[in-house]
């Protein structure tokens, strides 16, 4: 097997219209400034695609970037990033997936893949070090993701596959790779609009070797040590998966209940990770490679199935008031098959349930009842009947039928399963996140509620904290490494680990810009540096993360985003909840003001010229 | 929604402004009575009015008020602020305490106030016009020129009211108004 030292610095561009391909080199400068993964993907998109294009047209490009870590053996580095223009939001859509396609593409000798144009008829692509083969996908068109994946196993070691939802351009259709997904932003619809049913990468042609193996190995071992020491990564998530969050969120008032009208529920334990681990006799089923092992499968209803992740449990479970994990697992399986984002699907169905209750529409959906939910998911995937409207997401639904006050989305992307009224930092994060109501933009709820490191209901320091977390998360997603390693890498170093919470909390709350300077996140840039052979200090790495975030924001402002869009659904601004005796709502204006100040944006949320200049972002 | 967060709000009273207006109404009432004896023009205006003429000037909805009328023997008398079963022939209703304050701090004259719908007049139009003329004369007597110019529509010229008449009349009206 051949070796690639560091990175191959080449991306394969596939033109579906002309059925051709070519090699695009990545400059060293871009790699250093944008790190790889999501960052490099955004930079490529920015350089190649003008603003104002239709996401479902030929002009849109779908970019997959593997990142520097993939294939090197770095812990929890089995992930890859994707960038495109989202048909759901009309803004930059980015995704992260732990499926096998990334490894297959990287070990085929490519750091990334660009798909442009549109095929005349359904095709699937097979990528190897030699290039790409265009194959007729008519026999797969109309088939579900799992069937097609199985059929394509002999073609390569990893695939990206869309289901019927992607074929029918459901605006929140996803892309499947193994048992993981490029879930959000409707990337499946983009591939569907290009008539691409699947992309297979042969893989196993190259071995990836770091340029400075000693430096890399030292950082890698330390990271592993931290992962195995940290209680969240080594115990909670390892034993119970992401559903360990259910009980935590229920106690902290973050669990979405009944379309986000409530923050906790007496029956939440039925869908908790602890209960499901026992009930379904779960075993590991994870991304490869992974040291945390959060993914699980179990014996559910007589079948061995992937245990639904927390987001699915939260949005299809408590948010619809369905506390039966077997029912939620059925919905999860349907979404897997059809290639639908579970968060957007479930939150859209929750909207439909509430709109039915209020008399705005007529459906057979009802809170607390799993009846008709499965049929609705199928109707959405095939855009049948009312499913055709539901397939466009809550924003379009509320524009047509009303109910905008309980359409739980930001910028068109449905909200994940953390109620922002339980943690104001998370509320701010949702409001300003680049791709919409994304919980992974910062996962601030963990800092505020799980770890008690920042007062969830204080206005102090929120702007700078969210800005810092966004920078770090962007950098993580450009490595590309699993965000859960943040629990280990950020919390295990000496200062954070051994400073008592009663000191740490006020420091992080009231002296946030100073406190973040003491946070040691150097393991990530050290591994990156060990792989590429380039110097990358911690502060340079965080600055790169900031550059990536601000570039994405700038690209969104070219699509019309400004302060008017950095908001939350009315429910969170005006309605209190029973679980909170103080009936708190989110004081968003002050939070957004402090964020813009921390970010160097003007009062309209547009990055100032000097901010762009400082980050070396060229205005287009 | 917690309805207890939005309680009923009963209207408070603006005591200081009400006291000020009450005092001003008393002064104006007494001054009209005095002017009716002292000034020739005022005497003539009142003579043209009917014998049962009774003015009620009040602040809606709960006062204070001023009653001025002609007695059986034709004299003009300030009848006080209480309603003792009077039947006013001319009612000037000032719609609010704030409107009265504008009037009695001379930021607006009577004519302007009426034009701006702060004052509602009930009764005969000729009587109302006569009363406005009377009030203008009284204000010229009571107030220094710099303030009276704001209150009245047209400050009288030298030929209409010479300084001797004005100052002498002013002294007499003040003495009569504040003594007997």
């Amino acid at each position, binding site marked *: 097997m051949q070796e690639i030292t560091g990175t191959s610095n080449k991306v394969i561009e596939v033109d579906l219209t002309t059925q051709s391909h070519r090699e695009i080199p990545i400059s060293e400068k871009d790699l250093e400034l944008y790190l790889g993964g999501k960052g490099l993907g955004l930079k490529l998109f920015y350089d190649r695609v003008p*603003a104002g294009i239709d996401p479902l047209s030929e002009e849109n490009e779908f970019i997959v970037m593997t990142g520097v870590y993939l294939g090197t053996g770095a812990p929890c580095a089995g992930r890859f990033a994707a960038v495109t223009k989202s048909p759901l939001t009309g803004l930059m859509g980015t995704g992260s997936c732990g499926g096998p396609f990334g490894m297959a593409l990287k070990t085929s000798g490519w750091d990334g893949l660009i798909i442009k144009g549109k095929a005349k008829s359904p095709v699937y692509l097979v990528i190897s070090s030699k290039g790409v083969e265009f194959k007729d996908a008519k026999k797969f068109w109309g088939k579900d993701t799992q069937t097609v994946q199985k059929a394509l196993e002999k073609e390569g070691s990893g695939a990206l596959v869309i289901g019927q939802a992607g074929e029918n351009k459901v605006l929140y259709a996803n892309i499947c790779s193994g048992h993981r997904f490029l879930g959000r932003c409707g990337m499946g619809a983009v591939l569907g609009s290009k008539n691409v049913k699947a992309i297979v990468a042969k893989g196993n042609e190259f071995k990836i070797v770091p340029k400075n193996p000693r430096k890399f190995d030292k950082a890698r071992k330390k990271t592993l040590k931290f992962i195995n020491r940290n209680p969240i990564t080594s115990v909670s998530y390892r034993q119970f998966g992401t559903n360990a969050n259910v009980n935590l969120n229920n106690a902290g008032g973050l669990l979405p209940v009944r379309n986000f009208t409530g923050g906790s529920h007496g029956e939440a334990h039925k869908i908790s990770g602890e209960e499901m681990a026992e009930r379904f006799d779960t075993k590991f089923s994870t991304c490869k490679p992974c040291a945390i092992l959060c993914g699980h499968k179990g014996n559910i209803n007589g079948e061995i199935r992937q245990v639904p992740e927390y987001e699915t449990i939260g949005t299809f479970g408590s948010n619809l008031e369905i506390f039966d994990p077997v029912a939620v697992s059925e919905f999860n399986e349907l979404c897997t098959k059809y290639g639908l984002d579970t968060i957007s699907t479930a939150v859209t169905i929750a909207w439909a349930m509430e709109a039915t209750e209020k008399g705005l529409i007529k459906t057979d959906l009802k809170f607390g009842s799993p009846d008709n939910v499965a049929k609705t998911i199928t109707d959405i995937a095939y855009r049948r009947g009312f499913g055709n409207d539901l397939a466009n997401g809550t924003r379009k639904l509320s524009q047509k039928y009303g109910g905008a006050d309980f359409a739980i989305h930001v910028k068109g992307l449905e909200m994940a399963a953390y109620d922002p009224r339980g943690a104001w930092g998370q509320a701010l994060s949702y409001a300003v996140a680049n791709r919409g109501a994304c919980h992974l933009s910062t996962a601030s709820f963990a800092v505020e509620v799980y770890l008690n490191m920042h007062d969830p209901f204080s206005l102090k320091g929120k702007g700078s904290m969210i800005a810092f977390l966004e920078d770090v998360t962007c950098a993580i997603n450009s490595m590309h490494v699993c965000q859960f390693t943040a629990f280990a890498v950020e919390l295990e170093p000496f200062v954070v680990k051994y400073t008592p919470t009663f000191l740490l909390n006020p420091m992080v709350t009231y002296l946030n810009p100073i406190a973040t300077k003491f946070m040691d996140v150097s393991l990530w840039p050290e591994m990156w540096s060990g792989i590429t052979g380039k110097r990358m200090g911690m502060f340079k790495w965080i600055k790169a993360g900031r550059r990536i975030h601000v570039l994405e924001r700038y690209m969104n402002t070219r699509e*019309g985003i400004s302060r*008017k869009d950095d908001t939350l659904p*009315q429910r969170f601004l005006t309605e209190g909840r029973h679980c909170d005796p103080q009936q708190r709502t989110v004081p968003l204006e002050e939070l957004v003001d402090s964020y813009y100040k921390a970010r160097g944006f003007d009062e309209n949320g547009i990055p100032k010229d000097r901010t762009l200049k400082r980050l070396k972002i060229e205005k287009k | 929604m917690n309805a207890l967060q939005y309680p009923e709000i009963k*209207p408070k009273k603006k005591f200081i402004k009400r006291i000020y207006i009450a005092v001003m109404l008393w002064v104006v009432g007494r001054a009209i009575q005095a002017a009716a004896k002292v000034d020739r023009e005022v005497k003539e205006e009142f003579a043209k009015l009917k014998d049962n003429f009774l003015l009620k000037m009040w602040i*809606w909805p709960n006062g204070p008020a001023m009653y001025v009328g002609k007695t059986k023997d034709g004299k003009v008398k300030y009848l006080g602020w209480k309603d003792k079963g009077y039947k006013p022939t001319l009612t000037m209703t000032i719609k*609010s305490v704030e409107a009265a304050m504008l009037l009695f701090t001379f930021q607006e004259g009577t004519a302007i106030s009426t034009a701006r719908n*702060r004052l509602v007049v009930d009764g005969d139009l000729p009587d109302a016009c006569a009363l406005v003329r009377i009030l203008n004369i009284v204000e010229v007597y009571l107030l220094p020129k710099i303030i009276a110019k704001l209150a009245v529509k047209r400050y009288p010229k030298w030929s209409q009211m010479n300084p001797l008449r004005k100052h002498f009349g002013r002294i007499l009206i003040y003495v009569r108004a504040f003594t007997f």
Partner: protein
Amino acid sequence: MIPYNFTFLSHPKICSGLKALEHIPFELESLNARKPLVITSARWAKKGLAKTLTKALYDSNITIGALFTNAPNYPSVTIINELSKLYRDRGCDSIIALGSGGIAHIAKAVNMVVSLKTDILQCTDLTISSPLKPLICVPTADCEGGEMAAVAYYERFEKQSDFLYPDVIVIDSRITRHATSQEIANCALTSLAHAIEACGIVAPNPINDAYAHTALSFIYQYFPKTIKKPCYKDGSVAIVNAAACADTAFSNAPQGIVHTLAQAIALDTNLQPGIVMGILLRYSLAAKLHAKGGIRPELLLALAGIDTYAKTPEKDRQKAAYDYLTKCIDATCNYVPSTLKGLHIPHYKLKEYARLAAAKNKQHKENEYMALLEKSFEGK
């Protein structure tokens, strides 16, 4: 010349100027009401406007049944039902809307529910055949159009009825001077568009023209100064007066192409409709200038006054009116770009907006809407 046939209705009494709020108790009493439900938003309550209104009702027989200070900007079924219940529980007999935009429409929707004694969604199909409960509108300067008109917007419904006019509109500088420049621009441009479209209809009438012309002359005189200094008392009062007059003109004329398109774009993009109207209006007028019939020369009279109108030769009046109007719109250059592209509206969405507008207002065809959108996109 008296037009062959027209109908016109303007119901509201307008109290405008110094201490106008203090008229409210008397006006309520004359409408046989003594216990209003006051609806306003947290923003205005924080600025002290609710306190100002409460003080204006001192020394009267008016008891505020409830002062609701959390009205959102979106008139949802939930808030309408909650406020209707509050109204009934407190035994209120009238409503005061303190604020513009969603607050006014929530107040109108609540008024329908409590007067017609039915669910808000059923009100959409009902014909209102008798006066509703007394409604007083105290607008702030962030009007979005329709607050003082015979129309109510709630959820995605639009209800038109002569009985939806407020009974009294109170315009006081203590209330109007708190808007931002952006909001003043939005208000003025909405009023401009409504006034121009109202007097540009096929069969204009002199009464409607009078309201439209008053709106235009207020905007032309006060807008350039007020947009630089939004707290300018006279200016903000003038702009809101212009909005009131424009709303009346709007209620007595069919909805125009600019209004319909702006609503469709604003719904999708969260932009303020007035900002979009300001862009579309420029190109709509430019197109009309060269079309058969052109722009009415009387607009010049409204904008520039009798002297300029008389001095301008008859053949040049249309062009002069267009120039004055664009000069007025240009005063917003810091807040409103001159093309839709400047607002970052993507070209591919124009077709959808034209389709939605044509579905809502069938007086114009989809290709007419599309033509205006194309012209406004890059300004060519």
